[in-house]
Every structure is written in structure tokens, then in C-alpha cells.
């Protein structure tokens, strides 16, 4: 009996051992051509039309099939599922000619019917599609006209700014597939999802693209996305080789990685993201009248701008991985950046001259206004963001040099937002702006004086200053025009006014930093999201 037990125990151990070996071998085999990286939050949806968060946006980028796509490197619009397209002169209509013989990942054929279905879904008010919002330029319904299985025209009730570029975010969904949004046209498809842990994307067997040698794309077999919000853990996992890339690396981590492994880090230069501060110009804000007068003076705001040493902010706070900001548009935005604008030179003397023009004077090292009030204001920023806290400390020190006393206050984010949007009980705020889109129309909600996000003075009933009225006019003009040259002229002027009036004091544009494992080939990080895997179909491992 005992020898039988021993025999069965040994057999059991052998089987377990063999299974383990097989498991390891199988895992290794599966790991061939598998890219791994972290998503910093749980995706809220896999429906490409409902995407409203970074994680879902990453999934959409990797799985969605688009009619046209902006090349993240050249920033030019390129054909994808549509071989050609034409926008009408009035900016209301767009016609697409589609590729033929294309199928969704489940084998359902793709045709103009799917494009019509996608657009109708996108514009359905009941769906509340954030992507659809950018197409809603006026009241009325969208009309889709299927000319043939490969031709379609879409007519909007009012002109849509940069109509063709707006389709960069519209992933096609199938009108007929029983799998609905899980049937995709992109290079990868969702194969497995473990909430809170991982998402496995597998190669789409029906993906239509091939490389120059006729090899079917994508090269990778799969992409494993681990949901990991902790940046320290992400960094450690990268160092251990458990993940292959990190997007939007922060400058401290970048330098630490560069010190030990310089070939894995990539600095693509200034990104679209900016750090900026602004003064409260809300008329009903609970501030003393003399302070409201300072903050509403362009000379005061420009003086503060001139007294901020942006070079030091970029060099010290971001360890050289940032550029002094020029204006509302980063130089990284190749087409829309107004090249005539130059970064504001650090000049305490120029700042004092501007202040003197408004009646300010220096008394025993303290700046006072014409009524004898010492110039003291507070800058709020969100607690826990060490870069903003350091920038605020350096600005505090810079202001001391022109006799201004600044109190730095760090607040939890909800309190800060409440002061910014509800109570208007603040003097100056230092925050960052993440620009996802290149087109000025994406910034309409910031520049229109009636907008809620017109941060320095939201929801004005009518423009309170002449320059705000001019910005309103120019922004509306660029949005309703389909002529890129005219649009550029209008938006160039908006940028000039923004610099002249300094409602926002732009500080720095952070560089696009990333890390890519040497085992990943074909990567070419760029400044636009998704920085490292924008050409995921061409990556190999």
C-alpha cells in the first residue's frame, strides 16, 4: 500500500513538474512578439465612440480603424480606410472614397454602410459621444448619403472646423456584426480583459495593411496592457524588464534611467503640454478692489510675465527637459504655432518699467501701488505635484526681486477647482494644460469669453474687454472657415493678443520624454500621443 502511495505521489510530482515545464515553454512561446506596457488607469469603455479617458483612448488607438489618420511624426493627415476624401468649400460636407475588400476582425465586410452607421451613432444625442461633440457645430441633423459601397458623403448642418482632421478620432464600428464594437478594423483586437489587472490585445487576422515587402501587419502577435497607476512601480517594472515602454516619463525618472541606461530613454523635444499661471479677473470675485485693478491691468500681468525666469524654470525644475513657453501654442505644433513670437526675456528691469507706468513704486524693497498698498498676492497650485510646487517657489523668489511678496498655497485638487470655477476666491493659479489636439478649434472652450473654461474670467455675458471681443471674433472666424490659410491668419493674431495681454502667463512646455526597451525594434518616439507606440503595427520584439 505504501509503495503504491509512493508511486502515485512520484507520478503526481512528475506530472506537475511536466505541466509546469510545458506552461513555462508555452508562456515563452506566447511571449514571442508580445509588447507589454502599463495603462495608468482602468479603461472606462471599449466602445470607440464613447471614449473620454486616456486608457480607453489608448485601446481605441490600437484597435480602431479610421478613415483618415494624422501621422504622429509629420502631423499630416494620411489615408487609411479611405483612399481619398474631399471637404466642400463651405466646410459642411465631406466625401470619402473607401478601400474595398476589407473586413472587420470577426470577418464582417466593411462598406460605406458602416461609415454611415458610425456617423449616425456618433451624432446620436442619446449616446453623449465626446468624440461627436467636436462635430456639433450647429443645430440640425447630419445627413449621410451612400453613393456606392465604397463612396459616401456626409453633410453637417453647419460648417465644422478642420472637418477632415476631426475624423482622426472616429473609429469605425460595424453596422452588422453581432460583436458590435468588439469587431474592429485596427491592427489589434481585444482578446482578454481582466478588470483591474490586464488587457490582452491580439493581432487582428483581418487587418488590411501590409508592409513594402508584402508582409502582413502588424508584426507583433499581441500587446499586454497592465493596469498600473503607480509611477514608481511602473519604473521598477521597466527596470526589471517586465514592461517594454513608458510614455510621458517625468524628468527625474528620465535622468535616473539615463544615468544607468542612456540608450533606453528618448527626449523628443517640446510637447504640446504647457504650464501656465493666470490672475483672477472675475468682476464678482471676493477680492479687494485694488487687487482686482492690478489683475485687470495688462501692464501688471506683462510685468509679472517679464519677471519670471523661464529659462531657470526649464533648467532647474525640469532638469533641462522643458522649453521656455512662447505663447498659447507650443512650437511642437508645427502648423499652428506663430513663428513670429519669441519667448519673453527675463527682465526684472523691464517688469519694473511696466509697473511704474501703472503708478507702482518701490519703497524700501517693497513694491507699492499708487494708493500705497504693498503688492502681495498668493499663487495656488495643486498639492502633490512637486514640479508645480517647485515652479511656484521659484516664481516666489523671482517676484521678491521686484519687491512683490508671493504666498504659495498648495491645495487639494477639488478645493482648487472649487475656487477656480465656483467661488472665484483666488488671486493667481498655477496649473498645466494638456493639449491633445493640434487644431485651434480644440481650444474654443478656453478662448471664447462666454465659455466656462475661459479661466481668467469665465462665462462673460458679453466680452468685458476689447481684446477679448477681438479674440472671440477671430476664434469664430477660424472655426467657420475651411481655408487653412485664413484660419492660420486668424489664429496667429489670437496668439499675438494672448502674448500682448497675458491673460495666461505661459511658463514652460514640457518635453515629451519616454523610455523604450532595447528589445523593441522600430520605435520612433514623437511628441504627440501615443508617443512611443504611434506606429505599433510596425514594432517588433
Amino acid at each position, binding site marked *: 500500500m505504501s509503495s503504491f502511495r509512493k508511486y502515485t505521489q512520484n507520478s503526481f510530482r512528475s506530472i506537475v513538474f511536466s505541466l509546469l515545464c510545458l506552461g513555462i515553454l508555452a508562456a515563452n512561446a506566447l511571449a514571442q512578439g508580445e509588447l507589454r506596457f502599463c495603462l495608468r488607469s482602468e479603461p472606462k469603455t471599449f466602445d470607440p465612440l464613447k471614449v473620454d479617458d486616456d486608457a480607453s483612448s489608448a485601446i481605441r488607438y490600437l484597435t480602431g480603424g479610421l478613415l483618415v489618420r494624422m501621422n504622429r511624426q509629420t502631423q499630416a493627415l494620411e489615408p487609411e480606410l479611405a483612399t481619398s476624401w474631399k471637404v466642400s468649400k463651405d466646410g459642411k460636407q465631406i466625401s470619402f472614397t473607401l478601400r474595398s475588400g476589407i473586413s472587420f476582425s470577426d470577418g464582417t465586410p466593411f462598406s460605406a454602410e458602416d461609415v454611415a452607421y458610425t456617423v449616425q451613432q456618433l451624432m446620436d444625442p442619446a449616446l453623449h459621444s465626446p468624440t461627436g461633440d467636436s462635430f456639433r457645430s450647429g443645430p440640425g441633423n447630419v445627413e449621410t448619403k451612400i453613393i456606392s459601397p465604397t463612396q459616401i458623403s456626409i453633410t453637417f448642418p453647419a460648417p465644422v472646423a478642420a472637418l477632415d482632421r476631426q475624423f482622426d478620432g472616429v473609429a469605425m464600428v460595424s453596422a452588422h456584426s453581432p460583436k458590435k464594437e468588439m469587431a474592429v478594423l485596427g491592427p489589434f483586437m481585444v482578446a482578454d480583459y481582466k478588470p483591474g489587472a490586464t488587457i490582452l490585445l491580439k493581432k487582428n487576422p483581418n487587418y488590411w495593411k501590409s508592409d513594402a515587402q508584402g508582409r502582413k501587419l502588424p508584426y507583433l502577435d499581441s500587446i499586454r496592457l497592465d493596469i498600473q497607476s503607480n509611477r514608481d512601480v511602473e519604473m521598477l517594472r521597466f527596470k526589471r524588464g517586465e514592461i517594454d515602454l513608458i510614455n510621458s516619463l517625468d524628468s527625474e525618472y528620465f535622468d535616473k534611467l539615463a544615468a544607468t541606461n542612456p540608450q533606453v530613454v528618448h527626449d523628443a523635444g517640446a510637447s504640446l503640454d504647457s504650464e501656465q499661471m493666470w490672475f483672477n479677473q472675475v468682476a464678482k470675485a471676493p477680492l479687494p478692489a485694488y487687487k482686482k485693478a492690478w489683475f485687470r491691468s495688462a501692464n501688471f500681468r506683462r510685468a509679472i510675465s517679464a519677471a519670471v525666469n523661464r529659462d531657470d524654470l526649464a533648467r532647474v525644475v525640469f532638469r533641462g527637459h522643458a522649453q521656455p513657453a512662447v505663447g498659447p501654442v507650443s512650437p511642437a505644433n508645427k502648423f499652428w504655432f506663430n513663428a513670429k513670437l519669441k519667448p519673453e526675456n527675463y527682465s526684472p528691469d523691464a517688469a519694473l518699467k511696466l509697473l511704474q507706468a501703472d503708478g507702482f513704486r518701490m519703497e524700501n524693497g517693497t513694491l507699492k501701488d499708487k494708493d500705497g498698498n504693498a503688492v502681495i498676492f498668493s499663487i495656488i497650485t495643486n498639492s502633490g505635484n512637486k514640479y508645480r510646487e*517647485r515652479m511656484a517657489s521659484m516664481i516666489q523668489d523671482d517676484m521678491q526681486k521686484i519687491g512683490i511678496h508671493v504666498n504659495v*498655497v498648495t491645495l487639494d485638487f477639488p478645493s482648487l477647482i*472649487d475656487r477656480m470655477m465656483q467661488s472665484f476666491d483666488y488671486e493667481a493659479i498655477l496649473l498645466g494644460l494638456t493639449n491633445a489636439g493640434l487644431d485651434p478649434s480644440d481650444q474654443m472652450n478656453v478662448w471664447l469669453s462666454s465659455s466656462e473654461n475661459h479661466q481668467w474670467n469665465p462665462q462673460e455675458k458679453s466680452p468685458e474687454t476689447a481684446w477679448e471681443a477681438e479674440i472671440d471674433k477671430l476664434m469664430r472666424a477660424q472655426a467657420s472657415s475651411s481655408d487653412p490659410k485664413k484660419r492660420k491668419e486668424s489664429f496667429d493674431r489670437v496668439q499675438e493678443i494672448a502674448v500682448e495681454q497675458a491673460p495666461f502667463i505661459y511658463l514652460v512646455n514640457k518635453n515629451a520624454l519616454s523610455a523604450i526597451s532595447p528589445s523593441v525594434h522600430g520605435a520612433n518616439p514623437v511628441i504627440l500621443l501615443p508617443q512611443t507606440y504611434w506606429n505599433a503595427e510596425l514594432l517588433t520584439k
Partner: protein
Amino acid sequence: MSAGRRVACAVLLLVAGVSLAANWLAPGGYAKQYREATDAPPSRQHWLGTDEIGRDRFARVLYGTRISLLLAPAAALLSTLMAALIGGLAGYLGGVWARIAMAVTDLFLSLPWLFLLIMVRALMPLNVSPLFSIVVTFFMLGLLGWTSAARVLCASSATLKDSDFVRQARASGVRGARLFWIHVLPNLKPVLYAQFWVSIPVFILSEANLGILGLGVAEPMPSWGSLLKELEGLVSVGEEPWKFVPLALLIVVVTSFQLVLSNQEEVAV
């Protein structure tokens, strides 16, 4: 006095003395930014190197120590006095008064400190000096930190109330406030001392924790909390050991307080 306690007292005196001499030992001050020498290692000019925006770390440690060591005892004094008043009186009066006082104490104990402090910071005017901000933070800590001590004092006071000498005083005609003030309160002194010493390291650590959350001391004023924030993201001890000086100092000071306290506790018992 034990040797351990003597050493602890000497350490506390030394730390307090050096921090009070910060003006002479670090004449550059805690706010000056040496922007050409940021995040620098220790040197002759900067004994503990500089922080990320080039401020002398040695100066910041000295001034931070001064703030933490001055305000933590002040907050401890406030909380001990409140505990003596609420807990001591509740124990002395007994009955319904004790039950009400203990219910209030339990209510305070159940309050989430952190959210309360975040709320207070959010409600405070923005244009206050860094010194005012830190004073308010410690005041809040003192105002909220009396509860545990009040429970201990309530129990001690209730015991004293029935002691022979109090009964004798009562029999001699001493009544009310005079009885409490002359006979009960002086005999609570050892417990009060112990509670006072216990509170100091607790408040120092609380402020350090609040500093890490971005509350408490406002820039550019340093505190142990803001200095400890520098350790965030530090991968290894050997990488930049001088950054651990504030942490080492905190451990030394808290340990010294505990050593001094252990003797006081013996006295209290």
C-alpha cells in the same frame, strides 16, 4: 537620572541649541536659491548639499528643526491643558457630567483628522504668511489632540476624587472649584507631564505627515515634513545618503523624547 535619560536630554538640548543658532551657522538663510548648484552633494559651501531648487539643505534642516521643536511643544501644551480641563473636571464631577464629557471625547476621537485638516486649510484665507499657516496647523493639531489624554485624566481624576486626602479635605469643608484646584489638580501633575511629553513626538510626526500631503508649512519655510518629502522616489539609501539627515534627526529627537518620557511615566505611575 538614568544614563539613557541624561544622553537623551543632552541630545535634545544640543539639537535645540544648534537650531536656535541657525542664524549664525547658516547665514545664507533657508530660502536663498543657488540656482547654479541645484541638487548638489555636500560641499564646503553647502554641508548637506542643496535641494532641487538650490536651497542650502543644512540651513533648511536647522530652521525646520527650530519650527518643529518650537511649535510641537506649544501644541502639546494646548492639548494637555484642554485634556486637564475636560478630562480632569469630568472625572472629578462624575455622573452625568463625566458621561457627557466622555461622549464628546468619543465624538472627537471618531473625527477623521486628515480630512478636517484639509478642510481647515481650504477654508483658511490664501494670503497668510507661511508662519501663520504653520501656527494654525499646530494649533489645529493641539485642538484635536487632547482626546486620548482626556480619557486618561478622567480616569485618574475619578480615582483621586475618592482618595482619603480628598475625602478629608471635603470633610474639612473644602468644596467645589477650590477642592479641584487645590487638592485634585496638583495630584494630576505626573499624568499631565507624561501626556505632554507623549504628545510632542506625535505632533512632530503629524506635521511631518501633513507636510508630505502638501499641508502644514507653506513655501519657502522649511519643516521636517517638507524636508522628508525629498525622500519620495529615492531608490536606495546609498544613492544620496545626506538626504536622510532630516529623517535621522527626526528619529533621534523622537527617540530622545521617548527616553525622557519613559522616566516621566515612571514618575507618573
